[in-house]
């Protein structure tokens, strides 16, 4: 079970989704978004080769139906399967309406870093770069600060960026930002958060667009 902070972020991200959209959920917090999506509201795509991801009960588990995080999932009515090249053709070709991704850092141009940490011995990228260039809309989810209290919303990413593309929406445990006309706009405070906390924990310059 994920922690309440992650659940709150996932729940808020789910509210961004519109009826009938094709949505790809990344590993981590984004995976939890599935728990807050109403049945038949959106269609979940997973880049390992499936459209129509659904929750699965313990009894129904099929070990050969997994999502991009290699967790077993269920098959919605009308689901389909395809090979990895076809799956990424959908992604790069602009056929995915929304990608929700986890990030390590976001900068004030809404560029993200989520695949490599300098000095760390972990080598992997998966589908992150493809989703960033291909999805019509990208929403990223993250805790606002790292475990040692440093802001993840930076002036400039100091980890390697995942794409030159600017994401559309950033959702953290403290706030929701939209990237509009070249600037990050604070559009919403998460429940329990206040402006001072957001300001204190955000290195990036942003426009206060709270209503």
């Amino acid at each position: 079970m994920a922690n309440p902070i992650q659940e709150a972020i996932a729940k808020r991200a789910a509210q961004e989704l519109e009826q009938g959209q094709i949505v790809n959920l990344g590993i981590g917090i984004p995976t939890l978004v599935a728990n807050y999506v109403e049945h038949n509201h959106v269609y979940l795509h997973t880049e390992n080769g499936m459209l129509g991801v659904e929750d699965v009960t313990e009894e129904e588990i099929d070990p050969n139906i997994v999502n991009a995080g290699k967790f077993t999932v269920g098959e919605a009515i009308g689901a389909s399967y395809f090979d990895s090249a076809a799956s990424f053709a959908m992604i790069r070709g602009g056929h995915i309406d929304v990608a929700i991704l986890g990030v390590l850092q976001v900068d004030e141009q809404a560029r993200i870093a989520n695949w490599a940490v300098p000095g760390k011995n972990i080598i992997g990228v998966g589908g992150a770069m493809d989703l960033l260039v291909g999805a019509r809309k990208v929403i990223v989810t993250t805790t606002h600060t790292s475990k040692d209290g440093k802001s993840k919303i930076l002036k400039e990413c100091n980890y390697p960026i995942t794409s030159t593309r600017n994401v559309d929406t950033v959702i953290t445990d403290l706030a929701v930002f939209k990237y509009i006309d070249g600037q990050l706009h604070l559009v919403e405070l998460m429940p329990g958060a206040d402006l001072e906390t957001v300001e204190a924990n955000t290195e990036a310059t942003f426009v206060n667009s709270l209503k």
Partner: protein
Amino acid sequence: MKIYNSSEEALDCVHTGQTIMVGGFGLVGGPLTLIDTLVELDVKDLTIISNNLGEQGKGLGKLLEQNKVKKAIGSYFTGNRDVGDAFQRGEIEIELLPQGTLSESIRAGGAGIAGYYTKTSFGTDLSKGKETKVFNGEEYVLEEALKADIAIIRAYKADTLGNLIYYKTARNFNPLMATAAKTVIVEVDEIVEAGELKSDEIATPHLFVDRIILAKKILTKEGVIEHG
């Protein structure tokens, strides 16, 4: 196409220095029987093209442990820290590709496409040193095709001609790799008579397939089990 009785015989064409594609996304759709035999072979200096390289000491991870891997081309080695360690020690080369680029390059290799332009990885560390080109005002990266000497893959059913169908998300890289290697070796859950697979449903026509064995290791809810 020929049906073999054992994975040892089916893999008798594997030699030191070859490039080998291995299907699967983690355990799902992986040719588990063939991988287990592959790691026992007395070969080295292999180039492995596979999304990931097993886990520590498991599956393809064993090949690495035994210093049989010269180079790994894949997208997500995160699940096996040995990969990063071996790379740091200079023991293996790594070519890290975005997952979409990995799969598209394998398709290109099988389709007679030498290279192609994708937006993916433009402006990132992964496109350093790669050619770029502008199409309609947008920047694209040139990626080259991947091919192999051998592909070992998993399918769900084969017929006696070698036609294949896949099961659910166990499809992943398998049909692509079936097109991109000189010798394609497949393990399947079941072999049926030609004509039993529906003609509109066949995912890999038999012209791509060289050798088939019945799988002895199957992924179940309870993990990988021996079978048959």
